[in-house]
C-alpha cells in the first residue's frame, strides 16, 4: 500500500507492506537508527517516537497508521531548541543514560515538559517506568529532567 507521511519535516511517499511496523520502516527503510529496537512487544519502551505529537511505541505501531501523519524521531528532534533544553539539563547534572535508551528518554522528557514545566519528582519517576533499562540512576534522571524544565522555563521567559 502507498502511504505519505511527514517524517522529521520531510514529506515521504512510499509503497509498504501492510504488516510493516513503524520501527522497521524508520530503521530499515530510512536508516534512522536512533530509535532502538528492543522487545518488539511494547514492553521496554526503547522505541518511542512522536506520531502526531503523541509519544507512541513504534514497535506496536503499524507503519500504515502514519499515513498523512507527522512522525518525529530523535534525528528530527535533535536540532530543535527544545532538544537543546534537554541536552543542557542532562549535561549540567551529568545524567548520562546508555546509548540504547537515551533517545527514548530524551523524547519522553520532551513529552513531560510539554505537559508541565514544573514536573515533580513523583511524576518523573512514574512516567519513566515506561522505559525499562538497567542504566539509569533515578536520582540523576529526576535532577536532569527538572534541570531541563528550568532551562526551558528560562528560555521561554526570555523569548
Amino acid at each position: 500500500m502507498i502511504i505519505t507521511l511527514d517524517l522529521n519535516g520531510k514529506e515521504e511517499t512510499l509503497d509498504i507492506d501492510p504488516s510493516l511496523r513503524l520501527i522497521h520502516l524508520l530503521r530499515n527503510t530510512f536508516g534512522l537508527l536512533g530509535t532502538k529496537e528492543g522487545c518488539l512487544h511494547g514492553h521496554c519502551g526503547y522505541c518511542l517516537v512522536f506520531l502526531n505529537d503523541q509519544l507512541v511505541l513504534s514497535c506496536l505501531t503499524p507503519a500504515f497508521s502514519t499515513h498523512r501523519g507527522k512522525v518525529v524521531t530523535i534525528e528530527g528532534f535533535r536540532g530543535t531548541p527544545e532538544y537543546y533544553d534537554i541536552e543542557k539539563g542532562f549535561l549540567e547534572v551529568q545524567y548520562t543514560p546508555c546509548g540504547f535508551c537515551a533517545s527514548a528518554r530524551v523524547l519522553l522528557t520532551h513529552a513531560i515538559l510539554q505537559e508541565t514545566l514544573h514536573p515533580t519528582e513523583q511524576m518523573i519517576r512514574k512516567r519513566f517506568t515506561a522505559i525499562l533499562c538497567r542504566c539509569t540512576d533515578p536520582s540523576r534522571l529526576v535532577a536532569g529532567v527538572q534541570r531541563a524544565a528550568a532551562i526551558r522555563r528560562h528560555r521561554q521567559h526570555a523569548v
Partner: protein
Amino acid sequence: MEDLSEVRKVLQGKSTFVGDILDPKALWVKVKRATIPHGRIQGLVFPPFPPYVRIIRSKDIPGKRTISFGKVEIPLLNESEVRYVGEPILLLVGPDPEELEKLSQQIVVLYEELPANFEIPLAEEGQKESLYLKESLYLEKTIQRGNPKEAFEQSHRILEREYSTGFQEHYYSEPHGAYVHWDDEETTLDIHIASRWPFHVHRVVKESLALPWELVSVSIPPDPDTSLDGKLWYPSFVSAHAALAAWLTRRSIKYLYSRQEDFLFTPKRAPSTVRMKAGLDGEGRLQVLEAEILFNMGAYPVFAEELLDRAIYALGVLYSCPHLHIRGRVFTSCLPPAGAFSGMGGSQSLFALEVFTDEIRQELGVSPTEWKTRNLATKQRPKPWGAHRKQFFPPSALLETVLQASDFERRHATLELLRKHREQNPESFTSPEFWEGIGIALGAQGSGFFLDREHRSKVEVRMTKDKKVSIHTSAVPGSYALKSIWKTIASESLGVHPSSVFIEPIRTRSTQDSGPSIFSRNITLTTKLIEQCCSQLKKSLPAGLPAQGVKSLDPRYARSWNRETFLGNPFTAISWAAAVVEVKIDPLSLVPQIEHVWMSIDAGRILDEKEARRTIELGIAQAVGWTLLEHVFYVEGSIPHPLFWNYRICSPSDLPTPHIEFLPSEDHKNVKGLGELALNVIPAALINALSQGLGKRIRAIPKREEVLL
C-alpha cells in the same frame, strides 16, 4: 566528568550497537534449538531447502567444537546428547531471517528422551546420597577451622535455618548478537560484538575455525551499554556461530537474538540454597558456624569454582568465629547454563548470613547493632581466613555512620514494639494503616578475579612526537565516566591537555589483552596499570618521543591465596558497605514500598564521587529487583512464555533517592571496586525490614506476596 562530545552523541541518538550495523548483503543466521531438556538425538529430518539456504552442523566445524572453561566443555553445536531446552543443534544461514525461522520449525529432531533433573537433587537428612545426586554434583569443597563438633557441644544456644535465592535475568540493553564482516580479498574475519572479554571471543573463534591468530579480529562497539556481566563469556559462543557461518559461506553475517530468545535461553544468576547452623556462647557470641551452600548452575557450570569460592569466602568475611565448617557444592541440571552476575557468590551467601544473624539477634532479644558490635571481626577477634592486614577487617566507622544517618536504633526499637504488639493482638492485622519495618545488613566486595593467575592483563600507553597520548587496553568500560577517569589520569600524569588523550578503539588485532572486564577489574586493575604505564612512560621522556609504557598485572596476590585451604589474601583489596532499608507495607496487598535507603561505604580512594554514587544506585536498583520483582523460574526445563511479558526490573518509581556516604578510608591510596556492594548488602537489609514489618520471617528471594498469605 564525562567527555561531553561523547555524551552529546549518546543523547542525540548517534550511539551504534551491533543491531545498528546495516549491511543489506549480509546473510542471517538462525539457530535450531533443542526442544527437550535432556535426550540423545537419533536423527534429523529436513524439509526441502531452497538452494540459497545453508545448513551448518557440528561436523562442519573445522577446528575445536567446544568452548572450554576448565573441565567444562560446551559444544558449539550439539547433535549428540542435548542437556537443556534451547541448546543449539545446528545453524541455518540465508538472506531472510523470517524464512529461516519458518524453515527451522520444519526440521524434525528425533530424540531418545533421557531423565532430566531441574532442581538440586538433595538427599533427606540421614538418607544415603543417591547415585543421581552424585552424577549431578560437579564441584564440592569443604573448609574447616577449629573443632566445630566440640564447639556445638559446648554452645549455649544453637540455631538452624535455610535460605534460598532465585535466578535473575541480566536484562542488558541489546540482546546477544554479532556482525561478522567478510572481505574476499583479505580473507579475514572482522567480528563486531558487545563482549566484556574481547580476547576470549578472539581465542574461541580462532580455535573453532582452526585459523591463525592474525586472520581474526574482534571489535567492540565504542558506546558502553549496560551489559554488566551478562556479556562475559556467552558472546564467545554467539561469535563462534556467526564466524562459522561467515567462514563457510564466504559472506558477511548478521546474527541477532530476539529479546525473547535471549530471555529464554541465555545465562542467568545462579540460584542458591544456603543452610546455616550457629552455636552461640552465653553472651550471644558466635562460636561456631556450620553452613552448606548449594548452587544450581544448569547444564554447563561455567566459572563454578569462582562462584563457590566467593560464596564460601563471604560467609567468613564479617564476623569472628573460631570454629567453622562450610561445605559448598555446585550441581548441574537440565537448565540453560547459569553464569557470572554482579555479586557472584557473595550476594547469595551474604543474603543468607545477614538474614540469619538478624534471626539470631531476634532469638537473643538484642538489637541488631548490639549483636553486630559484639561479633564483628577485629584484629583481636580475627575472622577465619587468616588475613591480618588492616584493610581486610570491616572498618569501625562503617556501622556507626549508617546507624547515625538512619537513626536506626531508635526506629528499630519503635517498630519492634509495634511488631510485638501486633503479634500479641492479631486483630490489629486488619488495621488499614501501613506496616513499617527497618533492616540492616553488612557486606563486602573483593576486587579482582580469584582466577587472575590464569588471565593475562596488560595495558599500554603511548605518546607520539606531537604529544598525543593513546591508551591501549581491551578493558571494556561500562560508562563514559570511567573512560574520562582514565583520560584524566594520563593527562595529569603526563602533563598534557585532556583533549590530547585518546582511548584507542578496542580491536584485538591492535590493542593489549587486559583480561575480562568483571569484578570491578576495570576500576582497580586496569586503572592501576594505566597509572603505572604513565609513570613508566614519564621516566622514559628524557630519551625523547615517541615513548611508551607497558605494564602487566602482577599476579603475586593471586599466588598468595590457597584455593584448597582458604588461607591468604584472595583479592587485591576488599571494600565494605553497611545498608539500612526502611519499608512501608500495604497490609491488604502486602506490597512493600521502599521509603529510605542508607549506605555507608569504604571503597578506598574514590576517583569520581558522582560516578561512584551512580554505580551504587544502579546496584541498589538491581538488588531491589532481585529481591522483590524479578521472578524467573523454569517449568520442566523451560521458562513459561508469559513470564517474559511480565518480567519487570526495578523502575525509578520503585526507589527513593538513597543516602550514600563514602567513608574516609584508612586505605586511602588503594582504588577498590564498589559495583557489587549494593547486591551484597541491600537484599538482606530489605528482607530484614520486610520481616519486621510483616511480623513474619522471609527466607527466600525473590519475595512473593502469595507465599506470605
